[in-house]
């Protein structure tokens, strides 16, 4: 990670890294091929010129003859005509017998001369303000009784060779640039296509829901399969660990709840048998504490249940109006204890698809909260309405202390409680459970303060069946 963050911007992406590296390789190869073609072309042109010069000098040497002791030469027309093949170059020549110029340019003296007949000496010299390629051949001519070595030198400037070399070099440069651009394009395509499985893999992981810990089943390239296996193992271990802790919580809650019920029953009995007021007061406090503990245990159980059941959500048809009536009934004893009345405004049918137990648990937690935080002799209203045909809205409104504005956004977090709960006992799980259930059903929970500023307003929103 730190390595990737330190490099230039393109170093941070494998795709760009590949593209840039491939482009760099292509550039090196393009320059190399241009240089090679250029030097080959130049060498070929130079060799051609050398060959033509050798042919010219040889043709002249062949025309040498002697007559009565004098060396004679009739320059063949073709010897010079052929020099035109290379380009428009200046031509110089010299024919010398034993150091004496017979004909041609007196001062054209190459630094090296062929030593034996048939030898060819090739040199580039500076002559009359130009670089001149000079070829010399030697032939022995019998002048009278004397064998005389005759050197024929033919020189030519290199303009034509340069022009051929430059022309080919320019063509090679254009081709190299074209190849480079092609290679960069192909490199980008190649980098892109080899990274496609990785991107697809990443997207598949990203697309998953937060609680989806099923193993990934897909074909991946060999390089990615260790990652896939490691990821699947990690998810499996994570799932197991979550499941184990939920099981543990449920087990613990269950185990705590049963003895608490016994304690409560015993405390009730004791309450009826004692007569001293301070003892009764003590026992009532015990009962209240047991109630709170039992409720917290239920909520923990509920939460664990939600976690389990949400994984494989049932899709039964549930009527929200029925549900409201049933939950209100089950909570009415608690409400009556505080003289709180329910006002229900729910007319059947209001069908949704989902898990009855979970939905019941969500609504019960919300209503329970309302009762808990409402002062005595107030009203809690439950209204079922339909904003649009696609979803139902179940609004629970109380006249309690409401939400404190600053803690509103965080309230659905696990074990989070509002800033204004004072001494009221609570686990901080109620709204978490409700929200988890609603999200599992594709709905949401909305918390708001009513317009008149009194109490709280909680809306359970669910998609209609």
């Amino acid at each position, binding site marked *: 990670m730190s390595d990737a963050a330190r490099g230039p911007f393109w170093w941070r992406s494998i795709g760009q890294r590949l593209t840039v590296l491939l482009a760099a390789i292509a550039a090196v190869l393009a320059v190399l091929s241009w240089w090679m073609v250029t030097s080959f072309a130049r060498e070929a042109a130079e060799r051609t010129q050398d060959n033509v010069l050798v042919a010219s000098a040889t043709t002249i040497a062949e025309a040498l003859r002697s007559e009565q002791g004098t060396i*004679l*030469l*009739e*320059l*063949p*027309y073709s*010897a*010079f*005509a052929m*020099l*035109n093949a290379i380009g*428009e*170059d*200046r*031509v*110089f*020549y010299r024919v010398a017998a034993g150091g004496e110029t*017979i*004909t*041609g340019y007196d001062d054209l003296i190459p630094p090296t001369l062929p030593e034996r007949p048939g030898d060819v000496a090739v040199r580039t010299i500076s002559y*009359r*303000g*130009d670089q001149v390629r000079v070829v010399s051949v030697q032939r022995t001519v019998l002048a009278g009784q004397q064998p005389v070595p005759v050197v024929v030198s033919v020189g030519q400037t290199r*303009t034509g060779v340069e022009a051929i070399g430059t022309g080919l070099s320019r063509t090679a440069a254009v081709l190299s640039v074209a190849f480079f651009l092609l290679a960069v394009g192909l490199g980008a395509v190649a980098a892109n296509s080899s990274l496609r499985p990785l991107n697809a893999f990443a997207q598949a992981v990203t697309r998953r829901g937060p609680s989806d810990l099923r193993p990934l089943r897909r074909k991946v390239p060999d390089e990615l399969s260790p990652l896939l296996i490691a990821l699947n193992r990690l998810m499996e271990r994570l799932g197991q660990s979550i499941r184990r802790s939920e099981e543990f919580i449920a087990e613990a809650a269950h185990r705590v709840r049963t003895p608490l019920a016994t304690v409560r029953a015993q405390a009730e009995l004791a309450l009826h048998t004692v007569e001293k007021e301070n003892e009764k007061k003590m026992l009532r406090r015990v009962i209240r504490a047991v109630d709170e503990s039992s409720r917290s245990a239920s909520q923990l159980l509920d939460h664990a249940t939600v976690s389990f059941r949400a994984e494989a959500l049932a899709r039964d048809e549930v009527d929200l109006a029925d549900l409201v009536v049933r939950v209100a009934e089950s909570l009415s004893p608690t409400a009556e204890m505080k003289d709180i009345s329910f006002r229900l405004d729910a007319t059947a049918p209001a069908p949704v698809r989902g898990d009855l137990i979970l939905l019941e648990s969500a609504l019960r937690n919300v209503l329970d909260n309302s009762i808990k935080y409402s002062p005595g002799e107030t009203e809690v209203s439950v209204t079922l309405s339909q904003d649009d045909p696609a979803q139902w809205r179940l609004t629970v409104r109380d006249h309690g202390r409401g939400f404190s504005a600053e803690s509103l956004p965080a309230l659905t977090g696990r074990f989070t409680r509002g800033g204004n709960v004072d001494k009221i006992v609570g686990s901080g799980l109620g709204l978490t459970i409700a929200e988890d259930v609603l999200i599992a059903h594709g709905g949401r929970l909305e918390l708001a303060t009513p317009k008149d500023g009194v109490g709280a307003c909680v809306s359970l929103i669910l998609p209609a069946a």
Partner: protein
Amino acid sequence: MRVTHFARSLATVIWLAATGAEAFEVEDQKLYPGTGATTIKVVSTADLDVFEPFILQFQAEQPAVGIDYYVASSTELHAAIRDGEVFDVAISSAMDLQFQLANDGAAQAYTSPVTDALPAWARWRDQVFAFTAEPAVAVISRERFAGLPRPTSRQELIALLRQNPDVFEDSIGTYDVRQSGLGYLFATQEARNSDTFWRLSELMGRQGAALYCCSAQMIDDVGSGRLALAYNVLGSYAAERIARDDRLEVLEMEDYATVMLRTALIPATATQTEGAALFLDRLLQEGLRDTPETWVLPPLGAADQPEARAYGPIRLGPALLVYLDQLNREAFLRAWSDAMVQ
């Protein structure tokens, strides 16, 4: 005409005596002053009366540029430029000598849109530029040829000379290739192209051919009837003369034609290169024109006639050096003298 020519020669001699600086032999000279400070020195093998129309035309377009025009033989011109005489433009009919000047580094390179427009065969290294294509032709006297068939090839001409020795005895004129650079160029190129050249030369020598330095005098003598036939004279001069002298006729040879390119170059010693560039561009434009009538000197397009096309104009290339080689020249002149001067 004669008088003016004489007067001009006299003026030249006086001028030469006055300056005393010129080491080479000037045949003619005339200054065409311009309105500006620039005066370019042009040395040329073309006679003044041939070139004057062009100079006047040029000055009408570029009145600021003065032109000092010198006429010299091609060998004199070559020697002068080679030895470093200061001229801004050198124009010569001896393309081999012009080529040698460029090859030996006595010319400057010059490029312009006009030089780029020239065909590749009409320039060499952007130093030598051709602006005319002029064939060598045979001119006959109508009067002396009365009753004789007009030969259309060298073979027929040879046959005609053989059959009518009385008509042609001492009545054939041709270049003295020992003196004339252009004659030497025509002769060597023709000898290279065809073996009939030597047979023809031998025949002409046997019939006591008269040797001339220049085309103009040969044409004069054919006009006067002193010659029945002038062989290898400059087609451009002949055409100009025939236009006003109906005693002359050009033989239409269909077998081949030796086409010479008149060339111009800017010597390395040139001082007024800008003026020289203007002059050269205008000259090459004249060479690239489509209509041959406007000026005596034919344009480059003349090289595209059927008989000329067979071989093309003499090629501007290193092969021109072959006959300039001292040994070759000596050998050729020996052979030519053996054939011609008997």
